[in-house]
C-alpha cells in the first residue's frame, strides 16, 4: 500500500500546531501539550524517513522470506526519542506543578518575575 507524501503533510501540520500552541497559548499545561505535538510531528517524520512503500516491520521472527522491510534505524531512533520525550514531559509537568504552587496561576503572562 502506498501512502505517498500524506504522512509528511501530517508531520508538518503537527509541528505547526505545536508551535501555534507554544506561541499563542497562555496556559503552561497547553504549552507542554504544544511541545508534545512538535515532538510527535518530528517522530512521525523520523519514522517516515525510513519507510519503504509496502514494507513490513523489520523483524526476522516469523518473517516471510524475501519480504520488503522498512529501515530499522529510524524506528530505533524514534523509540529513543519517545523515551527522551517521556522524561522531558514529566519534568516539564513537575515544574508546572511547582510553578502553580508558588505563583497560584498557570498563566504564562503572569509568571514573569525573571525579566529585564
Amino acid at each position: 500500500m502506498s501512502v505517498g507524501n500524506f504522512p509528511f503533510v501530517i508531520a508538518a501540520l503537527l509541528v505547526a500546531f505545536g508551535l501555534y500552541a507554544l506561541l499563542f497559548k497562555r496556559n503552561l499545561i497547553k504549552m507542554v501539550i504544544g511541545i508534545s505535538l512538535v515532538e510527535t510531528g518530528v517522530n512521525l517524520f523520523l519514522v517516515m524517513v525510513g519507510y519503504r512503500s509496502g514494507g513490513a516491520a523489520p523483524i526476522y521472527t516469523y518473517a516471510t522470506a524475501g519480504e520488503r522491510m522498512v529501515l530499522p534505524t529510524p524506528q530505533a531512533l524514534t523509540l529513543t526519542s519517545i523515551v527522551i520525550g517521556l522524561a522531558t514531559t514529566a519534568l516539564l509537568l513537575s515544574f508546572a506543578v511547582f510553578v502553580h504552587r508558588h505563583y497560584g496561576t498557570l498563566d504564562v503572562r503572569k509568571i514573569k518575575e525573571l525579566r529585564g
Partner: protein
Amino acid sequence: MNALTVHAPVLLVAVPLLGAFATPLIGKLGRRTRDLFVGLIVAVTAALAGLLAANFFASGAAPSVYVLGGRAFNMPLPSGMMVPIRILFEVDGMSAFMTLITALVTLAGAYFSFSYWKERSGGSMYYSLLLLLTAGIFGMELTGDMFNFFVFLEITSIAACGLIGFRVWLRKSQEAGFKVMTLYTLSGLFVLLAIALLYGQHGALNIGFLASQIGSIGASLVDKIALGLLLTGLAMKAGAVPLHMWAPDAYGEAPAPMSAVLVANSQASLYALFRVLFTLFGVGATLSANGWILIVFAMLTIFVGVTMALVQSDIKRLIAYGAVSQIGYMLLGVGVGLVRRASLLAGGAALADKADALDYGFVAMQGGIFHMLNDAACIGLLFLTTGAVIRASGTRDLNKMGGLAHRMKWTTIFFIIGAFALAGIPPFNGFASKFLIYEASFKLSPFLSVIAILSSIMLLAVFVKAFQGAFLGSKTGLSDAGEAPFGMLLPMAVLALVVIAFGLFPGFFVDTIVTPAARALWLGPSEYIGAVLGGG
C-alpha cells in the same frame, strides 16, 4: 597504548554515569561517605580527561575512533562495509580540548558543592544530576554520531534543568526551570529534525560519513535546511542573542557552583555548532554567509549581554549576563575565521600553509577557542565567589549588600582576579585571548574590534559595580558572617591559579593545546573522515 588510554573516551562518559546511578544508593550510608564517593568519581573523571588530552596532544594530535560494541575499538568498518553503522566516539584536537574545559569546571563545581550543600538535605539527587550532566557534556564532546549527539544533548538538558529547579522552595527557580526546559526541548527537537533530514538524505548518522557525502556531492537543498536548523538550535542552547533569554534565568537561579557547570554546558553546544560548521559542512557548504551569521550573533551577544549586565541589581544575574556576553567573543573569533576560510577556499589557497603563516582567520580562531578555556576558568571562579558571597550575606540584592571585604579577604581577592581576567585586564588570561580576537577581527573590519573592545571596557565597569556593591562599604549593618570555609576557598584558589597560569604563560598553552584544536577545525573534515572511513 595501554588499556586505560584506549578506553578513555568511553570511560569519560561511563564513569560519571556509573557515579550518577550509584550516588543515591551510596547516599544511604551517610553524607560523608557519599561526598567521598562523588569526589572520587569526579577526580577519576578529571584524571581520565587529563590522560586522554595529554596522550592525544603528545602523540601528534591525529584523530582516533572508539567503536562501541564492535570486535575491536578501532574498526569502524568491519568486513568490507561501506557505511559505519555502529555508534562510535571520535577524538580530535577540538574534542580533546573541550574535555579539558569540562573536567576543570566540574572538578571545581563538585568540590565547591561539598561545603556549599553541607546543611541541606536531598544532596544525593543533586550530585546524581551533577554527574549525569557531566556525563552528558563529555558525551556531546566526544561522540562521532549525530543521533548519539542528540541523546547526550537531551541528557544535558534534563540534568541541567533538574539542577536549575532543584531548590523547589524558591519560586523563581521553578519559573526558570520551566522556561529553560521548554526552550531546551524546543531547540533539541529542531536539532532532531535536522538529523532526520540528514539521515533521509544520506542514509547514515556517522558525522565523518555524512561529512564525506556532503563534501563529495555538495550540499543539497535538504542539507542546507538541516544546516539552518542545526545552526539556530545550537545557537539557542549556547545562548547567543537574541536567543539568550533563558541564559540569565538559568545561570542566575541555579545553585552557584552549578552555574559554572551550566556555562560549560553552553560551551559544549558551541563546540557542536563549530563541529557542524567546520566538519559536517566544512567542504560542501562553506559559505561566507555561515560566518557572517555567527558574526551578527556575536556582535549582538557581546553588546546586549554587557549592557544588560550593567543595570542588574541581582549579583548572580549580573554575572550571568556577563557570561552571556563572553559567548559572543568566542562566536566572533570563530566567525571571523569562518569568513576568512570561505574566501581562502574560494581562492584555492592551501589552508595548512595559511595556518602556519598565522593568517588572521586562523589567529581569530585561536583566540576564540582559547577564550573558551579562559572564560570557563574566569566565569567559574566568579560564580563560585558569588556563591560564597550570597551564602555569607544571605541576600542576592546588590542594594542590600556591602562591606564584605572586611570579613572575606580571600574571596575578595579571588573576585578581583576573576573580574579582571574576564574584563581583559593584562596580565590575566582573558587579555591574552581577547588580544588575538581584537587584532584578527580588526583585519576583517575595524568596526568589529571597536565594539568588542568597548564592550570589554564596559564589562570592567559592570564588575566594578558588583565589587563596589558587595565588597566595599562600611562594616556597620554587616551580619557576623565570616570568611568562606576552606572547602569553598580551595576550588576558588585552584581556578584562580589556573587563571594566573594561563595569563602569564599564554604562549605555552596556545602552542600545546589551542593550536591543534584550531587546526582540527580550520583544516576541514578530511582527517576526521579519514579516521572513520580510512584513507581520507
